[in-house]
């Protein structure tokens, strides 16, 4: 993975010093909260219900075991012994003290980590495919291109005060594991007609109050010029994005207002100005970064697995994925034990995963947007030992992309923006459906505690949105969303429910699916697409 040179380290160290001084000014009273708030947000620090919350960047979701151990240390030293992995592949700490935050950031900087731009109206952490570098279906490892974007976007002088936040994702396969069509910009690595690498560029996707699937703004963007093209899109957005209404300020609104052709023309015109200015990184820089993502030297071998133990066989089937080198698997570690909090990991669990990564997966860990962890390069011969160690620590749930693998934002248990609790609803749904999840097949359930949609409810096969209804927590049921390459937006089925009612409604949807599917290989999402809302409405609300 990428390792800092002296320049990268100097920038992160300077950022720690800058933030330390900003905190000192705030504590001394020379900086008002109004002026401090955007500064702390640009460093990922929120004030939540119980304390400050710090969102630490995990660039494109990749961590070393050294970094994961530091995250465990931070959970213990500065928080209450745990952290929460998020749908943006980052980690959040819930109990942070402002006065300790500069020391925390200094600790992070010692392992080449930071909280740059994890909030605020700026370019956020770049996300990517959690299987990058290992997936059998990828064209190349997308992370070097994401790393160059990370550097390009860090303290970008022209784009640090955008109309609203800005999210970019990069993938390199036809299967989309990073929901690129629900990002402000989605980049898909492809080969051009001459065989050279470049990107298909999507723009204007997003969730939140007005969910929109991105549109293709450029079928082919040459690799040599992609940074200046990003500058061009951002400049059009910075100048023309709406600033009069926070709910209409994302680039998706601008793209819709202008139309994709007019937006593309504006971007092309701006790019014509920018391309000759030397803003693009030279080939040597990309080569330098690519060299650091060199795949581990894995030896292809025949896979001989003992599947006599049913629990292991089940875990193997559900939590591992084909690796490009025969005899190896990509392992997803579920952070969704039934009864647990989706995405939460204790310091002890983080340390265990770090240890297992050292032992079995070349000391590297990935964070997924589904709030799970990945060991990407595991020898099949080691799978049994890995599984046993995980299961002993409560990390052996065999439920990836199944009904109990629920995504949930922190909701009203932690978040000051939330209208309703999401974790208890996610827990109850998981507990109710876990016994039948084998029968239900692939089923992505996503719960958000407010319209901002951090729980990605619009991209859920089944989505749940918490709202405030006359002072009481109320939950809307949405069906038919997908964040994958077949992206679609979930639609509200009908009137909302209380917390008990929504769990029963979700259960009724799954029962209806089992009765309605054409055969067991038809996923819930495909049954929904084939039949539409009516039979599910009937099942949930009665005739």
């Amino acid at each position: 993975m990428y390792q800092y040179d002296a320049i990268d380290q100097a920038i992160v160290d300077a950022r720690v010093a800058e933030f330390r001084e900003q905190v000192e000014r705030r504590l001394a009273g020379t900086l008002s909260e109004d002026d401090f708030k955007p500064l702390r947000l640009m460093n990922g620090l929120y004030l939540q219900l119980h304390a400050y919350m710090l969102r630490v960047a995990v660039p494109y979701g990749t961590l070393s075991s050294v970094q994961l151990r530091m995250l465990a240390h931070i959970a213990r030293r500065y928080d209450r012994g745990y952290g929460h992995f998020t749908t943006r592949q980052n980690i959040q700490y819930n109990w942070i003290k402002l006065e300790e935050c500069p020391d925390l950031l200094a600790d992070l900087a010692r392992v080449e980590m930071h909280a740059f731009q994890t909030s605020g109206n700026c370019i956020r952490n770049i996300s990517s495919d959690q299987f990058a570098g290992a997936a059998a279906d990828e064209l190349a490892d997308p992370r070097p291109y994401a790393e160059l974007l990370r550097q390009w976007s860090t303290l970008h002088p022209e784009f640090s005060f955008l109309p609203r936040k800005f999210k970019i994702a990069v993938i390199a396969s036809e299967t989309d594991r990073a929901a690129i069509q629900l990002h402000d910009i989605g980049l898909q690595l492809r080969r051009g007609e001459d065989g050279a690498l470049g990107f298909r560029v999507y723009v204007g996707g997003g969730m939140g109050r007005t969910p929109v699937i991105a549109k293709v703004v450029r079928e082919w963007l040459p690799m040599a010029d992609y940074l200046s093209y990003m500058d061009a899109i951002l400049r059009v957005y910075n100048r023309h994005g709406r600033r009069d209404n926070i709910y209409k300020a994302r680039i998706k609104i601008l793209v819709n207002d202008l139309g994709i052709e007019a937006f593309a023309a504006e971007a092309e015109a701006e790019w014509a100005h920018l391309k000759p200015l030397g803003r693009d990184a030279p080939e040597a820089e990309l080569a330098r970064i690519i060299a650091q993502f060199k795949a581990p030297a894995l030896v292809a071998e025949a896979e001989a697995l003992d599947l006599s133990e049913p629990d292991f066989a089940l875990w193997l089937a559900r939590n591992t994925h084909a690796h490009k080198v025969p005899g190896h698997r990509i392992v997803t570690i579920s952070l969704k034990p039934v009864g647990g909090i989706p995405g939460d990991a204790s310091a002890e669990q983080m340390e265990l995963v770090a240890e297992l990564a050292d032992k079995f997966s070349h000391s590297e860990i990935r964070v997924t947007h589904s709030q799970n962890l990945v060991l990407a390069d595991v020898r099949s011969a080691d799978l049994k030992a890995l599984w046993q160690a995980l299961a002993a620590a409560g990390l052996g749930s065999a439920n990836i992309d199944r009904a109990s693998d629920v995504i949930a934002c922190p909701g009203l248990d932690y978040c000051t923006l939330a209208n309703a609790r999401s974790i208890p609803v996610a827990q109850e749904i998981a507990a109710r459906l876990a016994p039948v999840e084998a029968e239900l097949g692939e089923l992505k359930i996503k719960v958000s505690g407010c319209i901002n949609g951090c729980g990605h409810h619009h991209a859920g096969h089944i989505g749940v949105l918490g709202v405030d209804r006359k002072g009481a927590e109320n939950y809307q049921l949405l069906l038919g969303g997908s964040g994958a390459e077949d992206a679609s937006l979930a639609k509200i089925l009908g009137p909302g429910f209380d917390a008990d009612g929504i769990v029963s409604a979700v259960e009724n949807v799954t029962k209806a699916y089992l009765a309605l599917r054409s055969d067991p290989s038809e996923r819930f999402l495909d049954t929904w697409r084939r039949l539409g809302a009516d039979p599910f409405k009937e099942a949930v609300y009665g005739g």
Partner: protein
Amino acid sequence: MPHLLTCNRLETGEVLWWTGEGWNTDIRAAAALEKADAEALIAQLAPAERVNDLAAIEAEANGGGWRPLTTRERVRASGPSVRPDLALVGFPTNGI
């Protein structure tokens, strides 16, 4: 309807309740105020206090203490409902 004055401490972010004389992290020590008095206190305290998100919230009397009207404020008073182990001592989250 009684009002309670609440905020988060600047240095730590922890939840505080106005006792009539100062701040306390335990809602059971909170003083009930008339709405107008609470608003006057906010105006008086806001500029000088080292706190954020100063607000008056509604609460009802409940067994000698106070039960905030909204889920949000009940969660703030006791802690996350999904982590009873982290709740305010002697203040169970199952009442949220």
